[in-house]
């Protein structure tokens, strides 16, 4: 049977002129690593859900993307993570929102789908469920990255809310070639 896999790492004002060669290479390499992992699982006859979660784990563990380790900061200087999964065969689904101590949120969303009667859990309750399921909780400082923290500081100065990867956020990226941007 046919099989295939597609991934994204976020959309926005991502322009070549604003991207250093080294950063572009880093993104391409990480996307390749992630999708290859999922393809490996599918080629070996593994399930699409296993491929999806293993692939997303790699992107969650990379500071390049706004998920897991590379998460952006809230106004209160915390990292609040959300995730969801859905299985096309059973139409079962799992989702979590607003967690601050789960290293790989997609795995917790899958646990909600597979090991609870619920579809969506949030905040402290979701983390209580995680502990009952044997998830190790990480210290919130695990999610700190200088790049994202500095983005927040600059945005706070302008007191606007931005989507990840948009032009203003991209400008504050230390890899950005154009020094004229703040």
């Amino acid at each position, binding site marked *: 049977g046919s099989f295939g896999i*597609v*991934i994204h790492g976020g959309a926005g004002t991502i322009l070549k002129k604003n991207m250093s060669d080294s950063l572009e290479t880093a993104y391409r390499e990480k996307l*390749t690593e992630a999708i290859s992992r999922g393809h490996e699982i599918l080629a070996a006859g593994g399930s699409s859900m296993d491929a999806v979660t293993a692939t*997303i784990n790699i992107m969650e563990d990379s500071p390049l993307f706004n998920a*897991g380790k590379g998460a952006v900061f*809230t106004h209160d200087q915390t990292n609040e993570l959300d995730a969801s999964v859905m*299985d096309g065969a059973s139409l079962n689904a799992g989702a979590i929102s607003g967690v601050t101590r789960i290293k790989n949120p997609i795995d917790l969303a899958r646990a909600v789908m597979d090991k609870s009667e619920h579809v969506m859990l949030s905040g402290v309750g979701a983390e209580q469920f995680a502990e009952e399921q044997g998830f190790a909780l990480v210290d919130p400082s695990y999610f700190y990255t200088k790049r994202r923290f500095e983005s927040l500081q600059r945005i706070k100065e302008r007191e606007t*809310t931005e989507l990840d990867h948009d032009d203003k956020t991209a400008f504050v990226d230390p890899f950005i070639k154009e020094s004229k941007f703040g």
Partner: protein
Amino acid sequence: TVGCVALDKSGNLAAGTSTGGMTNKRYNRIGDAPIIGAGTYANNASCAVSSTGWGEYFIRAMVAHDIAVLMEYKGMSIQEAAQEVIQKKVPALGGDGGIVAIDRGGNIAMEFNTAGMYRAHMNKEGSLTVKIYK
């Protein structure tokens, strides 16, 4: 935000999305990523979809489910359905962003209305496509 959709050898589809949310967000604001039907949807009868974009608009437009039901009820291809929602419906509401999707035949869509989207596709033969810009 990151996401993945996959079709396995048994013909089953799955979708997943994970995000750190929005910089400087307040009031426990939640975007589309954890909302089934907006940021994530999968149905063997149509397709699997993962979204990334301005969450409020992707929730209002129920983007992921919309693409799936345009295929299921109106017989659109995955590319037609993705374009209809991402290039017409979402901008009409004022939002922006993109999706990746795959159907039971292994056909895919990587549709976005922003300047760029980090994205990659690998098919059964292992042929790899990695793109960033439009």
